């Protein structure tokens, strides 16, 4: 027998990135999948690439000066902010549109650093996500035949159910 109260509030982890596909995934999630009235929580996760580190022994260490790596890092943070802001705007937009009886979707934001595939799977575990929602990249002419490698990896390795939303 299911008790409705306990079932309320799924934690839905939505992986966002700079591309349109993840926006589609988020849109789908907000529009169709998540139910605010049930107390679902949407967790937006953006993974930004780790700043490159160069070992002393590696000759490439001489190619990049400190300022350059700092600039790269700053840029990646700016991108992260932009992506997160866009995603949050989308969430509030949907809340406004629906706006029934003050059921607002709970939204959390997480930004992580590192290799997207591994980090997403790890965070899904760590944040206790019930389901992971991702877009998939359409790589040009291979459009419908190829899942982006990140979503592919997560599909195979995440410990929770995964939804892939194709555009």
């Amino acid at each position, binding site marked *: 027998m*299911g008790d409705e109260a306990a079932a309320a509030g799924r934690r839905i982890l939505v992986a966002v990135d700079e591309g349109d596909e993840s926006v589609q995934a988020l849109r789908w999630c907000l*529009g*169709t*999948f998540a*139910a605010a009235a049930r107390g679902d929580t949407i967790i937006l996760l953006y993974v930004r690439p780790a700043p490159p580190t160069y070992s002393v022994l590696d000759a490439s260490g001489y190619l990049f000066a400190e300022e350059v790596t700092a600039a790269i890092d700053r840029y990646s943070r700016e991108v992260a902010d932009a992506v997160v802001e866009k995603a949050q705007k989308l969430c509030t937009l949907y809340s406004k549109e629906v706006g029934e009886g003050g059921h607002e979707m709970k939204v959390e934001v997480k930004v992580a650093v590192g290799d997207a595939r591994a980090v997403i799977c790890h965070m899904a575990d760590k944040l206790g996500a019930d389901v992971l929602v991702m877009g998939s990249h359409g790589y040009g002419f291979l459009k419908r035949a190829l899942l982006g490698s990140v979503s592919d990896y997560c599909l*195979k390795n*995440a410990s929770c159910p*995964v939804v892939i939303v194709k555009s």
Partner: protein
Amino acid sequence: MEEHEAAAASGTPGVDGDGAERGAAATALKVVAAVDASEESLRALSWALDNIVRCHPDATLVVVHAQHAVDHFVYPVAAHGLAYAPSSAVDSMRKAQEENSRRIVARALDMCKERRVGATAAIVEGDAKEAICQAVEQMGAGLLVLGSRGLGKIKRAFLGSVSDYLSHHACCPVLVVKPTKAQAK
């Protein structure tokens, strides 16, 4: 209320697949769950029942099973001829297939009934990947639910080929439920 229909060629999505998907909770989400003889697909169905259908009271659920097409068997005879398997053999094979499908679908529908969810069933014939892909398109599904085999020791590194294919090619979002160690309940 369950119907049992062979959706070989025509699948009419009678539900309001208008495409007018504005406003969250009012959308009728059409969930299609693909089942086969494996436990994983049933677990996927169970997860979907608990976590999707329960949260969307107006969602409709269709249970789909892909049955291998029973072709006429031919086998080579004496290096120059082909012999058709006797029709009785083909018939009995077909009956066995249908019986198998019926059992699988019945098990799935029972599970739905336990949770008091009305579901319809459809049996499609042919190669599982393509048949389900087509069925999903024809039904205008909003979400496809699949289990996936964690093949033994290669546990988390391999998706069953059907789930893999469908997650690439289905026309709607695909939910893959993988087996985990501690699946609650």
